Protein backbone atom coordinates (compact mmCIF):
# COMPACT_ATOMS: atom_id res chain seq x y z
CA UNK A 1 0.00 0.00 0.00
CA UNK A 2 1.42 3.44 -0.88
CA UNK A 3 2.36 5.59 2.08
CA UNK A 4 0.61 8.94 2.66
CA UNK A 5 3.83 10.58 1.57
CA UNK A 6 3.77 8.74 -1.76
CA UNK A 7 0.13 9.63 -2.28
CA UNK A 8 0.83 13.26 -1.60
CA UNK A 9 3.87 13.35 -3.87
CA UNK A 10 1.95 11.75 -6.74
CA UNK A 11 -0.97 14.15 -6.44
CA UNK A 12 1.33 17.13 -6.06
CA UNK A 13 3.26 16.23 -9.19
CA UNK A 14 0.01 15.80 -11.10
CA UNK A 15 -1.38 19.16 -10.01
CA UNK A 16 1.87 20.93 -10.86
CA UNK A 17 2.10 19.37 -14.30
CA UNK A 18 -1.53 19.72 -15.26
CA UNK A 19 -2.64 22.95 -13.67
CA UNK A 20 0.47 24.92 -12.79
CA UNK A 21 3.00 24.22 -15.53
CA UNK A 22 6.26 26.02 -14.80
CA UNK A 23 5.52 26.65 -11.13
CA UNK A 24 8.22 26.17 -8.50
CA UNK A 25 7.22 22.92 -6.65
CA UNK A 26 8.18 24.48 -3.30
CA UNK A 27 5.36 27.01 -3.69
CA UNK A 28 2.76 24.26 -3.65
CA UNK A 29 2.69 23.63 0.09
CA UNK A 30 0.28 21.37 1.91
CA UNK A 31 -1.95 24.24 2.89
CA UNK A 32 -2.34 26.09 -0.44
CA UNK A 33 -6.08 26.51 -1.00
CA UNK A 34 -6.51 24.84 -4.34
CA UNK A 35 -10.19 25.47 -4.93
CA UNK A 36 -10.79 28.79 -3.23
CA UNK A 37 -7.76 30.28 -4.97
CA UNK A 38 -8.81 29.17 -8.41
CA UNK A 39 -6.12 26.52 -8.99
CA UNK A 40 -8.71 23.77 -9.21
CA UNK A 41 -12.22 24.44 -10.41
CA UNK A 42 -15.18 22.08 -10.67
CA UNK A 43 -13.94 20.63 -13.95
CA UNK A 44 -10.30 20.24 -12.99
CA UNK A 45 -11.28 18.62 -9.68
CA UNK A 46 -13.07 15.92 -11.66
CA UNK A 47 -10.00 15.49 -13.83
CA UNK A 48 -7.85 15.11 -10.71
CA UNK A 49 -10.27 12.64 -9.18
CA UNK A 50 -10.29 10.47 -12.31
CA UNK A 51 -6.51 10.38 -12.17
CA UNK A 52 -6.45 9.46 -8.49
CA UNK A 53 -9.15 6.79 -8.86
CA UNK A 54 -7.20 5.07 -11.59
CA UNK A 55 -3.79 5.48 -9.99
CA UNK A 56 -4.76 4.23 -6.54
CA UNK A 57 -7.70 2.05 -7.49
CA UNK A 58 -10.25 3.75 -5.27
CA UNK A 59 -13.45 5.64 -5.80
CA UNK A 60 -14.94 8.92 -4.66
CA UNK A 61 -18.49 9.87 -3.72
CA UNK A 62 -19.98 12.87 -5.46
CA UNK A 63 -20.24 14.84 -2.23
CA UNK A 64 -16.52 14.49 -1.68
CA UNK A 65 -15.70 16.55 -4.76
CA UNK A 66 -16.09 19.75 -2.85
CA UNK A 67 -14.16 22.48 -1.19
CA UNK A 68 -14.79 20.83 2.20
CA UNK A 69 -12.81 17.74 1.26
CA UNK A 70 -10.44 18.77 -1.47
CA UNK A 71 -9.29 22.31 -0.91
CA UNK A 72 -5.70 21.53 0.04
CA UNK A 73 -3.10 18.92 -0.76
CA UNK A 74 -3.36 17.81 2.84
CA UNK A 75 -7.16 17.39 2.60
CA UNK A 76 -6.88 15.40 -0.59
CA UNK A 77 -4.12 13.17 0.76
CA UNK A 78 -6.18 12.43 3.87
CA UNK A 79 -9.23 11.60 1.81
CA UNK A 80 -7.35 9.32 -0.58
CA UNK A 81 -5.42 7.57 2.20
CA UNK A 82 -8.68 6.82 3.99
CA UNK A 83 -9.86 4.93 0.93
CA UNK A 84 -6.84 2.66 0.53
Amino acid at each position, binding site marked *: MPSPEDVKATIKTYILEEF*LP*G*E*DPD*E*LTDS*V*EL*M*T*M*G*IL*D*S*ISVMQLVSFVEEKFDCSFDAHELSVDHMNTLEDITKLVTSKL
Partner: protein
Amino acid sequence: MNLHQYFERSAAQSAEACAIEQADGATISYAELAALSDRVRDRLMLEGVEAGDRVGLYLRKTIDTVASILGVLKAGAAYVPVDPTAPASRNGYIFDNCRVKAAIVESRFSEKLEAELQQPSGAPPLFVVDEAGGGRGLERMLDGLDERKPAPKSESREVPMSNLAYILYTSGSTGKPKGVMLTHENATSFVDWCLETFEPTADDVFSSHAPFHFDLSILDIYTPLSSGAKLVLVPEDVGKEPLGLAALIEEKRITVWYSAPSILTMLTQRGELEGRDYSSLRAVLFAGEVFPVVHLRSLHEKWPHTRYFNLYGPTETNVCTYYEVVPPIPEDRTEPYPIGAVCSQLEGIVVDLDDQPVEKGDEGELCIKGPNVLNGYWELPEQTANAFLADYYRTGDIVVEEDGGNFRFVGRRDRMVKKRGYRVELGEIETALYAHEEIEEAAVVAIPDDDAGVMIHAHLSTVSGDKVSMIKLKKFCSERLPVYMVPDRFAFHESLPKTSTDKIDYQGLKNG
Protein backbone atom coordinates in the same frame (compact mmCIF):
# COMPACT_ATOMS: atom_id res chain seq x y z
CA MET B 1 -13.04 76.69 -42.97
CA ASN B 2 -11.09 73.72 -44.35
CA LEU B 3 -8.53 71.95 -42.20
CA HIS B 4 -5.53 73.34 -44.09
CA GLN B 5 -6.91 76.85 -43.73
CA TYR B 6 -6.33 76.59 -39.98
CA PHE B 7 -2.65 76.26 -40.79
CA GLU B 8 -2.73 78.99 -43.44
CA ARG B 9 -4.28 81.37 -40.95
CA SER B 10 -1.57 80.86 -38.35
CA ALA B 11 1.14 80.84 -41.04
CA ALA B 12 0.01 84.32 -42.00
CA GLN B 13 0.17 85.46 -38.38
CA SER B 14 3.33 83.65 -37.27
CA ALA B 15 5.39 83.55 -40.47
CA GLU B 16 8.79 83.69 -38.77
CA ALA B 17 7.99 81.38 -35.86
CA CYS B 18 9.26 77.83 -35.80
CA ALA B 19 6.48 75.49 -36.91
CA ILE B 20 8.17 72.11 -36.60
CA GLU B 21 11.32 70.76 -35.05
CA GLN B 22 12.65 67.26 -35.58
CA ALA B 23 14.40 65.30 -32.84
CA ASP B 24 17.69 65.80 -34.70
CA GLY B 25 17.30 69.58 -34.44
CA ALA B 26 16.18 70.32 -38.02
CA THR B 27 13.51 73.03 -38.05
CA ILE B 28 11.14 74.78 -40.42
CA SER B 29 9.34 78.10 -39.92
CA TYR B 30 5.68 78.71 -40.64
CA ALA B 31 6.55 80.69 -43.78
CA GLU B 32 8.89 77.97 -45.06
CA LEU B 33 6.37 75.24 -44.30
CA ALA B 34 3.67 77.22 -46.12
CA ALA B 35 5.96 77.62 -49.14
CA LEU B 36 7.05 73.96 -49.18
CA SER B 37 3.49 72.67 -48.88
CA ASP B 38 2.44 75.08 -51.66
CA ARG B 39 5.04 73.43 -53.89
CA VAL B 40 3.65 69.98 -53.04
CA ARG B 41 0.15 71.25 -53.88
CA ASP B 42 1.30 72.71 -57.21
CA ARG B 43 3.09 69.51 -58.19
CA LEU B 44 0.12 67.31 -57.28
CA MET B 45 -2.26 69.56 -59.18
CA LEU B 46 -0.01 69.53 -62.22
CA GLU B 47 -0.05 65.73 -62.11
CA GLY B 48 -3.84 65.79 -62.20
CA VAL B 49 -4.82 65.42 -58.56
CA GLU B 50 -8.35 66.75 -58.26
CA ALA B 51 -10.49 67.78 -55.31
CA GLY B 52 -11.85 64.58 -53.75
CA ASP B 53 -8.91 62.38 -54.81
CA ARG B 54 -6.80 60.42 -52.35
CA VAL B 55 -3.02 60.75 -52.07
CA GLY B 56 -0.97 58.14 -50.23
CA LEU B 57 1.87 59.06 -47.87
CA TYR B 58 4.55 56.49 -47.10
CA LEU B 59 7.31 58.33 -45.28
CA ARG B 60 9.03 58.24 -41.94
CA LYS B 61 7.82 60.89 -39.56
CA THR B 62 9.66 64.04 -40.63
CA ILE B 63 9.05 67.67 -41.60
CA ASP B 64 8.74 66.33 -45.14
CA THR B 65 5.70 64.29 -44.12
CA VAL B 66 3.87 67.21 -42.52
CA ALA B 67 4.62 69.41 -45.54
CA SER B 68 3.23 66.63 -47.75
CA ILE B 69 0.09 66.34 -45.63
CA LEU B 70 -0.55 70.07 -45.93
CA GLY B 71 0.20 69.99 -49.66
CA VAL B 72 -2.32 67.22 -50.24
CA LEU B 73 -4.99 69.11 -48.30
CA LYS B 74 -4.23 72.33 -50.18
CA ALA B 75 -4.74 70.44 -53.45
CA GLY B 76 -8.25 69.60 -52.20
CA ALA B 77 -7.43 65.91 -51.80
CA ALA B 78 -7.51 63.56 -48.82
CA TYR B 79 -4.30 62.14 -47.45
CA VAL B 80 -3.86 58.48 -46.64
CA PRO B 81 -0.92 58.01 -44.26
CA VAL B 82 0.42 54.49 -43.84
CA ASP B 83 2.65 52.97 -41.21
CA PRO B 84 6.22 53.08 -42.54
CA THR B 85 7.13 50.17 -40.26
CA ALA B 86 4.36 47.94 -41.64
CA PRO B 87 4.97 45.47 -44.47
CA ALA B 88 4.85 46.95 -47.98
CA SER B 89 2.15 44.43 -48.85
CA ARG B 90 -0.21 45.94 -46.27
CA ASN B 91 0.53 49.48 -47.39
CA GLY B 92 0.16 48.51 -51.04
CA TYR B 93 -3.21 47.01 -50.21
CA ILE B 94 -4.30 50.28 -48.58
CA PHE B 95 -3.24 52.40 -51.56
CA ASP B 96 -4.99 50.02 -53.95
CA ASN B 97 -8.06 49.81 -51.78
CA CYS B 98 -8.77 53.53 -51.78
CA ARG B 99 -7.31 53.99 -55.29
CA VAL B 100 -4.85 56.73 -54.49
CA LYS B 101 -4.31 59.11 -57.37
CA ALA B 102 -0.67 59.53 -56.41
CA ALA B 103 1.61 58.70 -53.53
CA ILE B 104 4.57 60.41 -51.91
CA VAL B 105 6.98 57.69 -50.88
CA GLU B 106 10.45 57.52 -49.45
CA SER B 107 12.88 55.77 -51.77
CA ARG B 108 13.70 53.13 -49.16
CA PHE B 109 10.11 51.89 -49.46
CA SER B 110 9.33 52.61 -53.12
CA GLU B 111 10.70 49.47 -54.76
CA LYS B 112 8.82 47.09 -52.48
CA LEU B 113 5.68 49.19 -52.73
CA GLU B 114 5.74 49.23 -56.51
CA ALA B 115 5.83 45.46 -56.56
CA GLU B 116 2.66 45.40 -54.48
CA LEU B 117 0.51 47.96 -56.27
CA GLN B 118 -2.11 46.37 -58.45
CA GLN B 119 -4.65 49.01 -59.35
CA PRO B 120 -6.65 47.93 -62.39
CA SER B 121 -6.30 51.34 -63.99
CA GLY B 122 -2.53 51.17 -63.68
CA ALA B 123 -0.30 52.04 -60.75
CA PRO B 124 -0.54 55.65 -59.54
CA PRO B 125 2.45 57.93 -59.99
CA LEU B 126 4.84 57.73 -57.08
CA PHE B 127 6.70 60.84 -55.98
CA VAL B 128 9.85 59.38 -54.58
CA VAL B 129 11.66 61.29 -51.85
CA ASP B 130 15.24 60.14 -51.59
CA GLU B 131 15.72 60.61 -47.86
CA ALA B 132 13.08 62.43 -45.83
CA GLY B 133 14.33 64.79 -43.15
CA GLY B 134 14.17 68.49 -42.41
CA GLY B 135 12.03 69.03 -45.49
CA ARG B 136 15.22 68.76 -47.54
CA GLY B 137 14.40 65.46 -49.19
CA LEU B 138 11.02 66.71 -50.32
CA GLU B 139 12.59 69.94 -51.56
CA ARG B 140 15.22 68.10 -53.60
CA MET B 141 12.55 65.96 -55.18
CA LEU B 142 10.45 69.02 -56.11
CA ASP B 143 13.55 70.80 -57.47
CA GLY B 144 14.31 67.81 -59.69
CA LEU B 145 10.76 67.66 -61.01
CA ASP B 146 10.69 71.44 -61.59
CA GLU B 147 13.87 71.22 -63.67
CA ARG B 148 12.17 68.88 -66.07
CA LYS B 149 8.75 70.51 -66.00
CA PRO B 150 8.08 73.48 -63.72
CA ALA B 151 4.84 73.33 -61.75
CA PRO B 152 2.93 76.58 -62.17
CA LYS B 153 1.92 78.32 -58.98
CA SER B 154 -1.74 77.77 -58.20
CA GLU B 155 -4.20 78.58 -55.44
CA SER B 156 -5.11 76.28 -52.58
CA ARG B 157 -8.45 74.67 -53.15
CA GLU B 158 -11.34 75.19 -50.81
CA VAL B 159 -13.50 72.07 -50.78
CA PRO B 160 -16.94 71.40 -49.25
CA MET B 161 -16.67 70.52 -45.56
CA SER B 162 -18.19 67.13 -46.34
CA ASN B 163 -15.15 66.22 -48.47
CA LEU B 164 -12.65 63.80 -46.99
CA ALA B 165 -9.59 65.26 -45.31
CA TYR B 166 -7.90 61.94 -44.56
CA ILE B 167 -8.51 58.22 -44.39
CA LEU B 168 -6.99 56.36 -41.45
CA TYR B 169 -6.77 52.60 -41.86
CA THR B 170 -7.33 50.48 -38.78
CA SER B 171 -7.21 46.73 -38.46
CA GLY B 172 -10.47 45.20 -39.59
CA SER B 173 -12.24 42.17 -38.24
CA THR B 174 -11.89 40.43 -41.61
CA GLY B 175 -8.11 40.61 -41.43
CA LYS B 176 -7.92 43.37 -44.04
CA PRO B 177 -7.39 46.94 -42.86
CA LYS B 178 -10.45 49.14 -43.18
CA GLY B 179 -10.40 52.83 -44.04
CA VAL B 180 -12.04 55.22 -41.60
CA MET B 181 -13.14 58.20 -43.69
CA LEU B 182 -12.98 61.56 -41.97
CA THR B 183 -14.13 64.82 -43.47
CA HIS B 184 -12.99 68.38 -43.07
CA GLU B 185 -15.99 68.91 -40.84
CA ASN B 186 -15.01 65.93 -38.66
CA ALA B 187 -11.44 67.16 -38.40
CA THR B 188 -12.12 70.82 -37.78
CA SER B 189 -14.83 70.26 -35.19
CA PHE B 190 -12.30 68.16 -33.31
CA VAL B 191 -9.54 70.73 -33.72
CA ASP B 192 -11.90 73.48 -32.54
CA TRP B 193 -12.54 71.43 -29.41
CA CYS B 194 -8.78 70.97 -28.87
CA LEU B 195 -8.19 74.72 -29.20
CA GLU B 196 -10.99 75.50 -26.76
CA THR B 197 -10.01 72.83 -24.22
CA PHE B 198 -6.23 73.07 -24.15
CA GLU B 199 -5.96 76.79 -25.00
CA PRO B 200 -2.67 76.55 -26.88
CA THR B 201 -0.61 79.71 -27.36
CA ALA B 202 2.31 80.55 -29.62
CA ASP B 203 4.60 79.66 -26.70
CA ASP B 204 3.48 76.06 -26.59
CA VAL B 205 5.57 73.14 -27.76
CA PHE B 206 3.50 70.09 -28.64
CA SER B 207 4.89 66.59 -28.94
CA SER B 208 4.02 64.38 -31.84
CA HIS B 209 4.62 60.92 -30.50
CA ALA B 210 1.89 58.92 -32.22
CA PRO B 211 2.48 57.79 -35.79
CA PHE B 212 0.58 59.73 -38.45
CA HIS B 213 -1.66 56.79 -39.36
CA PHE B 214 -3.01 56.88 -35.79
CA ASP B 215 -5.80 59.29 -34.84
CA LEU B 216 -3.81 60.82 -31.98
CA SER B 217 -1.76 62.53 -34.68
CA ILE B 218 -4.68 64.80 -35.54
CA LEU B 219 -4.45 66.56 -32.19
CA ASP B 220 -0.65 66.52 -32.38
CA ILE B 221 -0.39 68.14 -35.81
CA TYR B 222 -3.27 70.57 -36.01
CA THR B 223 -3.53 71.94 -32.50
CA PRO B 224 -0.10 73.58 -32.57
CA LEU B 225 -0.15 74.41 -36.29
CA SER B 226 -3.49 76.19 -35.82
CA SER B 227 -2.14 78.35 -33.01
CA GLY B 228 1.35 79.42 -34.01
CA ALA B 229 2.87 76.93 -31.59
CA LYS B 230 5.72 74.51 -32.28
CA LEU B 231 5.38 70.84 -33.10
CA VAL B 232 8.22 68.51 -32.09
CA LEU B 233 8.31 65.28 -34.08
CA VAL B 234 9.32 62.19 -32.16
CA PRO B 235 10.69 59.68 -34.66
CA GLU B 236 9.61 56.05 -34.55
CA ASP B 237 12.86 54.75 -32.98
CA VAL B 238 13.21 57.37 -30.22
CA GLY B 239 9.51 56.96 -29.41
CA LYS B 240 10.05 53.50 -27.99
CA GLU B 241 13.29 54.22 -26.16
CA PRO B 242 12.65 55.47 -22.61
CA LEU B 243 15.92 57.27 -21.88
CA GLY B 244 16.03 59.01 -25.25
CA LEU B 245 12.42 60.04 -24.89
CA ALA B 246 12.94 61.36 -21.35
CA ALA B 247 15.85 63.46 -22.60
CA LEU B 248 13.92 64.72 -25.62
CA ILE B 249 10.97 65.97 -23.56
CA GLU B 250 13.39 67.95 -21.40
CA GLU B 251 15.65 69.26 -24.15
CA LYS B 252 12.86 70.35 -26.50
CA ARG B 253 11.01 72.01 -23.61
CA ILE B 254 7.79 70.19 -24.47
CA THR B 255 4.74 71.85 -22.90
CA VAL B 256 1.96 69.49 -24.03
CA TRP B 257 2.61 65.78 -24.27
CA TYR B 258 0.19 63.29 -25.84
CA SER B 259 0.67 59.55 -26.20
CA ALA B 260 -0.70 56.14 -25.42
CA PRO B 261 -0.49 55.26 -21.70
CA SER B 262 1.96 52.44 -22.40
CA ILE B 263 4.55 55.04 -23.43
CA LEU B 264 4.03 56.98 -20.19
CA THR B 265 4.31 53.75 -18.24
CA MET B 266 7.59 53.04 -19.97
CA LEU B 267 8.81 56.57 -19.19
CA THR B 268 7.96 56.45 -15.51
CA GLN B 269 9.37 52.94 -15.07
CA ARG B 270 12.53 53.16 -17.15
CA GLY B 271 12.97 56.76 -18.21
CA GLU B 272 14.96 57.84 -15.11
CA LEU B 273 12.93 61.05 -14.99
CA GLU B 274 14.36 62.14 -11.64
CA GLY B 275 16.86 64.97 -11.82
CA ARG B 276 15.72 66.25 -15.19
CA ASP B 277 14.00 69.59 -15.69
CA TYR B 278 10.41 69.24 -16.80
CA SER B 279 9.26 72.65 -15.63
CA SER B 280 7.98 73.51 -19.15
CA LEU B 281 5.50 70.67 -19.21
CA ARG B 282 1.99 71.94 -18.52
CA ALA B 283 -0.29 69.15 -19.75
CA VAL B 284 -0.03 65.41 -20.25
CA LEU B 285 -2.74 63.86 -22.40
CA PHE B 286 -3.22 60.15 -22.84
CA ALA B 287 -5.61 58.02 -24.85
CA GLY B 288 -5.96 54.72 -26.59
CA GLU B 289 -6.17 52.32 -23.68
CA VAL B 290 -6.69 52.27 -19.93
CA PHE B 291 -3.86 53.88 -17.94
CA PRO B 292 -3.21 51.66 -14.91
CA VAL B 293 -3.50 53.91 -11.85
CA VAL B 294 -0.32 52.56 -10.30
CA HIS B 295 1.70 53.97 -13.20
CA LEU B 296 -0.28 57.22 -13.41
CA ARG B 297 0.45 57.75 -9.69
CA SER B 298 4.12 57.09 -10.23
CA LEU B 299 4.20 59.55 -13.15
CA HIS B 300 2.41 62.18 -11.12
CA GLU B 301 5.03 61.81 -8.38
CA LYS B 302 7.72 62.65 -10.93
CA TRP B 303 5.75 65.33 -12.75
CA PRO B 304 3.62 66.83 -9.95
CA HIS B 305 3.11 70.23 -11.58
CA THR B 306 1.37 69.33 -14.85
CA ARG B 307 -2.28 68.72 -15.62
CA TYR B 308 -3.41 65.25 -16.68
CA PHE B 309 -6.16 64.52 -19.18
CA ASN B 310 -7.63 61.14 -19.98
CA LEU B 311 -8.97 61.41 -23.54
CA TYR B 312 -11.26 58.74 -24.86
CA GLY B 313 -12.57 57.94 -28.31
CA PRO B 314 -12.13 55.52 -31.19
CA THR B 315 -10.61 56.59 -34.52
CA GLU B 316 -14.18 56.85 -35.83
CA THR B 317 -14.98 59.83 -33.59
CA ASN B 318 -11.55 60.90 -32.41
CA VAL B 319 -11.83 62.16 -28.81
CA CYS B 320 -15.46 62.06 -27.72
CA THR B 321 -15.20 62.13 -23.93
CA TYR B 322 -12.48 63.45 -21.66
CA TYR B 323 -11.63 63.66 -18.00
CA GLU B 324 -9.12 65.75 -16.14
CA VAL B 325 -7.45 63.75 -13.42
CA VAL B 326 -7.21 66.03 -10.43
CA PRO B 327 -4.56 65.05 -7.86
CA PRO B 328 -3.99 63.78 -5.29
CA ILE B 329 -4.22 60.23 -6.55
CA PRO B 330 -5.05 58.23 -3.41
CA GLU B 331 -2.48 55.60 -2.40
CA ASP B 332 -5.06 52.85 -2.28
CA ARG B 333 -6.83 53.68 -5.54
CA THR B 334 -6.58 50.91 -8.13
CA GLU B 335 -9.70 51.62 -10.16
CA PRO B 336 -8.85 53.47 -13.38
CA TYR B 337 -10.09 57.04 -13.69
CA PRO B 338 -13.31 57.69 -15.60
CA ILE B 339 -13.27 58.60 -19.27
CA GLY B 340 -15.31 61.64 -18.35
CA ALA B 341 -18.14 63.52 -19.96
CA VAL B 342 -19.02 63.82 -23.63
CA CYS B 343 -17.26 66.70 -25.41
CA SER B 344 -19.41 69.79 -25.78
CA GLN B 345 -19.95 69.53 -29.56
CA LEU B 346 -21.15 65.90 -29.34
CA GLU B 347 -24.01 63.94 -27.85
CA GLY B 348 -23.83 60.53 -26.23
CA ILE B 349 -26.35 57.86 -25.29
CA VAL B 350 -25.91 54.54 -23.50
CA VAL B 351 -27.94 51.61 -24.79
CA ASP B 352 -28.54 48.04 -23.71
CA LEU B 353 -28.34 44.89 -25.84
CA ASP B 354 -31.72 45.74 -27.38
CA ASP B 355 -30.52 49.22 -28.28
CA GLN B 356 -32.79 50.78 -25.67
CA PRO B 357 -31.42 53.60 -23.53
CA VAL B 358 -30.41 52.30 -20.09
CA GLU B 359 -31.32 53.78 -16.72
CA LYS B 360 -28.64 56.11 -15.44
CA GLY B 361 -26.11 54.00 -13.53
CA ASP B 362 -26.65 50.87 -15.60
CA GLU B 363 -24.09 49.44 -17.98
CA GLY B 364 -24.50 49.83 -21.71
CA GLU B 365 -22.79 50.64 -24.96
CA LEU B 366 -21.74 54.23 -25.50
CA CYS B 367 -23.00 55.70 -28.79
CA ILE B 368 -21.93 59.10 -30.08
CA LYS B 369 -23.33 61.55 -32.58
CA GLY B 370 -22.17 64.92 -33.79
CA PRO B 371 -19.76 66.62 -36.13
CA ASN B 372 -16.73 64.46 -35.18
CA VAL B 373 -18.38 61.23 -36.24
CA LEU B 374 -16.94 59.46 -39.26
CA ASN B 375 -18.45 59.58 -42.68
CA GLY B 376 -18.16 55.78 -42.98
CA TYR B 377 -15.71 53.04 -43.85
CA TRP B 378 -14.20 53.24 -47.31
CA GLU B 379 -16.36 51.14 -49.65
CA LEU B 380 -17.74 49.01 -46.83
CA PRO B 381 -21.44 49.96 -46.78
CA GLU B 382 -22.46 46.98 -44.68
CA GLN B 383 -19.84 47.60 -41.98
CA THR B 384 -20.73 51.28 -42.06
CA ALA B 385 -24.42 50.50 -41.54
CA ASN B 386 -23.61 48.12 -38.68
CA ALA B 387 -21.48 50.75 -36.99
CA PHE B 388 -24.43 53.07 -36.54
CA LEU B 389 -27.57 53.17 -34.45
CA ALA B 390 -29.57 55.78 -36.37
CA ASP B 391 -27.05 58.63 -36.56
CA TYR B 392 -25.18 57.52 -33.46
CA TYR B 393 -21.85 55.76 -33.91
CA ARG B 394 -21.61 52.62 -31.79
CA THR B 395 -18.28 52.72 -29.97
CA GLY B 396 -18.42 49.07 -28.93
CA ASP B 397 -17.39 50.20 -25.47
CA ILE B 398 -19.41 49.44 -22.37
CA VAL B 399 -19.70 52.32 -19.92
CA VAL B 400 -21.60 53.38 -16.83
CA GLU B 401 -22.64 56.95 -16.15
CA GLU B 402 -21.55 57.89 -12.66
CA ASP B 403 -22.93 60.59 -10.42
CA GLY B 404 -21.67 63.88 -11.74
CA GLY B 405 -22.16 62.89 -15.36
CA ASN B 406 -18.82 61.20 -15.96
CA PHE B 407 -18.67 57.90 -17.77
CA ARG B 408 -16.69 55.03 -16.34
CA PHE B 409 -15.22 52.67 -18.90
CA VAL B 410 -16.23 49.10 -18.10
CA GLY B 411 -14.73 47.31 -21.06
CA ARG B 412 -14.87 46.53 -24.73
CA ARG B 413 -18.11 44.88 -25.74
CA ASP B 414 -15.96 42.13 -27.25
CA ARG B 415 -13.95 41.78 -24.03
CA MET B 416 -16.97 40.57 -22.10
CA VAL B 417 -16.78 36.81 -22.13
CA LYS B 418 -18.67 34.03 -20.44
CA LYS B 419 -16.83 31.39 -18.47
CA ARG B 420 -18.92 28.53 -17.17
CA GLY B 421 -21.93 30.79 -17.54
CA TYR B 422 -20.46 33.63 -15.52
CA ARG B 423 -19.90 36.96 -17.17
CA VAL B 424 -16.27 37.97 -17.03
CA GLU B 425 -14.86 41.38 -17.92
CA LEU B 426 -11.24 40.84 -18.86
CA GLY B 427 -10.26 44.41 -18.02
CA GLU B 428 -11.36 43.92 -14.44
CA ILE B 429 -8.87 41.08 -14.09
CA GLU B 430 -6.13 43.34 -15.43
CA THR B 431 -7.03 46.00 -12.88
CA ALA B 432 -6.66 43.40 -10.13
CA LEU B 433 -3.30 42.23 -11.48
CA TYR B 434 -1.98 45.79 -11.67
CA ALA B 435 -2.55 46.09 -7.92
CA HIS B 436 0.27 43.54 -7.43
CA GLU B 437 3.53 45.32 -6.73
CA GLU B 438 5.60 43.03 -8.95
CA ILE B 439 3.41 43.46 -12.03
CA GLU B 440 4.50 46.03 -14.60
CA GLU B 441 2.16 45.13 -17.47
CA ALA B 442 -0.87 42.88 -17.60
CA ALA B 443 -3.00 41.78 -20.54
CA VAL B 444 -5.71 39.21 -20.11
CA VAL B 445 -7.15 37.30 -23.05
CA ALA B 446 -9.87 34.68 -23.36
CA ILE B 447 -9.05 31.55 -25.34
CA PRO B 448 -12.02 29.47 -26.55
CA ASP B 449 -12.36 26.22 -24.64
CA ASP B 450 -14.81 23.40 -25.23
CA ASP B 451 -15.50 22.71 -21.54
CA ALA B 452 -15.47 26.10 -19.91
CA GLY B 453 -16.44 28.37 -22.81
CA VAL B 454 -13.16 30.17 -22.42
CA MET B 455 -9.86 29.77 -20.64
CA ILE B 456 -8.48 32.97 -19.18
CA HIS B 457 -4.83 33.58 -19.92
CA ALA B 458 -2.92 36.39 -18.22
CA HIS B 459 0.16 37.73 -19.97
CA LEU B 460 2.44 39.61 -17.64
CA SER B 461 5.70 41.46 -17.41
CA THR B 462 7.24 42.14 -14.03
CA VAL B 463 9.21 44.99 -12.52
CA SER B 464 12.18 42.76 -11.72
CA GLY B 465 11.95 40.71 -14.89
CA ASP B 466 11.55 37.54 -12.80
CA LYS B 467 8.55 35.26 -12.82
CA VAL B 468 6.11 35.45 -9.95
CA SER B 469 4.78 32.26 -8.41
CA MET B 470 1.51 31.35 -10.11
CA ILE B 471 0.13 30.12 -6.82
CA LYS B 472 0.88 33.47 -5.23
CA LEU B 473 -0.74 35.27 -8.16
CA LYS B 474 -3.83 33.09 -7.99
CA LYS B 475 -4.05 33.73 -4.27
CA PHE B 476 -3.68 37.44 -4.91
CA CYS B 477 -6.40 37.43 -7.58
CA SER B 478 -8.72 35.27 -5.51
CA GLU B 479 -8.59 37.87 -2.75
CA ARG B 480 -9.83 40.51 -5.20
CA LEU B 481 -12.00 38.71 -7.74
CA PRO B 482 -14.62 36.00 -7.81
CA VAL B 483 -12.85 32.68 -8.19
CA TYR B 484 -14.17 32.12 -11.75
CA MET B 485 -12.28 35.25 -12.79
CA VAL B 486 -8.91 34.03 -11.51
CA PRO B 487 -6.77 33.44 -14.62
CA ASP B 488 -6.25 29.81 -15.60
CA ARG B 489 -2.81 30.38 -17.01
CA PHE B 490 -0.05 32.90 -16.57
CA ALA B 491 2.65 33.65 -19.10
CA PHE B 492 5.60 35.93 -18.42
CA HIS B 493 7.18 38.23 -20.97
CA GLU B 494 10.12 40.58 -20.82
CA SER B 495 7.66 43.23 -21.99
CA LEU B 496 4.28 42.76 -23.63
CA PRO B 497 4.12 42.94 -27.44
CA LYS B 498 2.74 46.23 -28.81
CA THR B 499 0.94 47.21 -31.99
CA SER B 500 2.23 49.92 -34.29
CA THR B 501 0.08 52.37 -32.34
CA ASP B 502 1.75 51.46 -29.03
CA LYS B 503 -1.19 49.62 -27.61
CA ILE B 504 -0.81 46.16 -26.17
CA ASP B 505 -1.17 43.67 -29.03
CA TYR B 506 -4.10 41.63 -27.77
CA GLN B 507 -4.66 39.91 -31.08
CA GLY B 508 -1.07 38.74 -31.17
CA LEU B 509 -1.28 37.48 -27.59
CA LYS B 510 -4.47 35.64 -28.40
CA ASN B 511 -3.09 33.98 -31.49
CA GLY B 512 0.34 33.35 -30.00
